[in-house]
């Protein structure tokens, strides 16, 4: 996407992404080592997997955590702050799971309340105000579905968070670290570049939730996971993510340091590139990136077309009959 703007794009069709910094931009490249969708789900959920704090500690040189939504509460399921990476200051916001049961209870298993998303929005705006690039780290089973969350406007908070990201006048890099659970993940997911760790998953609904609806049985979660096309290579093929960050052999849980290093390499490369794009171009490219997602069927003849061919027709993946 951005490469186009910079006129640096090579011949490789890479979802707007140069295969730099060791990133995987072609699903075929990892077809041989690819596991099942369900294995990806299990890896993505592995409690030993590096979580946001681990990645922040390993990928940045300094980090100062900032707290609170200025409205109701500091949500421990969302962490954020100002970090330094190679002399560049950035704002980082991520969902935070625990590594132990105790920590998971404190972090609500990485499921934010509305105040978590409102903290995120506050930090997005801080990044925008001071022209600091924003990096978001997605790792959540989903937004917390409890009644207090409903009372305090879970849906509104997610919607506002998405809205803020679509228009945020600063570079935004999204990294799906582990589980990308539905709207609760997308609230941190609108960026100029969307990356994912190799074994991360990203889905419109949990496999268990889908199985309960589709097959009336939670046990069919494996089948649902495969149908949902939620694993890294699927996301790459569908254009949901721009590139995968390779994990150490055996998965990120085996080596936090190596994983964080890989994230750092990806971030420095992306930030270096994005920081050279004028903000207006960044925003229109971000718009077009999400604008282009969707597959519809339209009769080539039929209903009177709009007077002139509108610009928004460009780019959308349409099947013309």
């Amino acid at each position, binding site marked *: 996407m951005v490469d186009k703007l910079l006129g640096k794009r090579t011949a490789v069709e890479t979802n707007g992404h140069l295969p730099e910094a060791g990133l995987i931009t072609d699903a075929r490249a990892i077809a041989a080592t690819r596991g099942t969708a369900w294995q990806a789900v299990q890896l993505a959920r592995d409690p030993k997997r590096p979580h946001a704090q681990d990645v922040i500690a390993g990928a940045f040189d300094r980090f100062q955590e900032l707290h609170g939504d200025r409205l109701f509460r500091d949500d421990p399921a969302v962490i954020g702050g100002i970090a330094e990476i190679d002399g560049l200051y950035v704002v980082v916001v991520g969902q935070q799971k625990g590594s132990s049961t105790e920590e998971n209870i404190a972090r609500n298993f990485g499921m934010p309340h509305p105040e978590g998303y409102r903290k995120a929005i506050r930090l997005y705006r801080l990044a925008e105000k001071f022209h600091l690039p924003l990096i978001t780290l997605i790792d959540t089973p989903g937004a917390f579905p409890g009644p207090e969350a409903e009372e305090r*406007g879970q849906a*509104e908070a997610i919607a506002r968070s998405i809205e803020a990201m679509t228009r945020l006048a600063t570079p935004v890099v999204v990294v799906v670290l582990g589980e990308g659970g539905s709207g609760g993940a997308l609230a941190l997911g609108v960026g100029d570049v969307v990356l994912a760790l190799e074994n991360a998953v990203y*889905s*419109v609904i949990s496999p268990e939730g889908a199985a309960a609806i*589709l097959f009336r049985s939670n046990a069919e979660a494996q089948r649902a996971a495969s149908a949902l096309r939620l694993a890294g290579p699927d996301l790459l093929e569908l254009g*949901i993510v721009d590139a995968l960050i390779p994990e150490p052999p055996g998965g990120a849980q085996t080596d936090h340091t190596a994983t964080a290093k890989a994230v750092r390499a990806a971030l420095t490369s992306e930030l270096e590139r994005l920081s050279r794009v004028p903000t207006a171009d960044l925003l229109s490219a971000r718009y077009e990136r999400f604008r282009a997602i969707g597959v519809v069927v339209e009769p080539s003849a039929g209903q009177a077309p709009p007077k002139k061919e509108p610009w928004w027709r460009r780019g959308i993946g349409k099947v013309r009959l």
Partner: protein
Amino acid sequence: MRLRMPFARGRKEFPSHLWTQCPGCGEMLFNKQLVRNLNVCTSCEHHFRFGGRERIELLVDRGSFEEHDSEMTSADPLVFADSKPYPTRIEAARAKSGEQDAVITGFALIGEVPTAIASMDFDFIGGSMGSVVGEKITRVAERALAERRPLVIVSASGGARMQEGTIALMQMAKIVAALGRLADAGLPFVSVLTDPTTGGVLASYASLGDLIVAEPGALIGFSGARVTDQTIGEKLPTGFQRSEFVLEHGFIDQIVPRAQLRDRLAFFLTAFRPVAHDMRWSL
């Protein structure tokens, strides 16, 4: 501006018999009368669901509706492995609802104000949002921007369409981004929530109206009550996630009975219309 009887079909929610029992008051209602009363119980004002196309007829100035993208239909980008193939589901939904997908979009006048409108139809796979809903709403928002019209979206949806996976999820971002451009241009967006508006639809465009109005008693929530129930392992309070509950918690501006909705929208759209010396959107 008096309300006219907006539609002839009484198909929605009344399969084949003459009477319907009201879940609000238990009264047996004569279907023809119920339809004549806009699917609102004449006894307790319970609001039954209402079709997407009938909704447009109800809200816009007579004969002013000009539909867009009426023949756009869904593909099966994931070749979704369901118990029933996705195209078969689509076919069944088409037959049930008479629509091509879960939203109808276009331009119309509301109280003489040129407006862009999108109206969802719950009968089409639970009003779920896939690529077609995403694309049609995005386009009508972009056209509203191009012609400087306000936008009204009437939601009725269970959320994102599972069969299109993350592609469906991304429609949230796509529509919200288009609404952002509308907002930057100072154009109003009024969101109307009807029974039910949940999941990814509520967690995106439906919650972003400059004004948000809801029909009485509509189910409005992010998580299905079943999920919420399981999570906390206890019964939820009465009225949980209903319009009145949501109003009390500060997330909607007004609860508007169906019969008043048209005039109310006309009032708001007129109020937001720029004064002559400061033309910012189409007159």
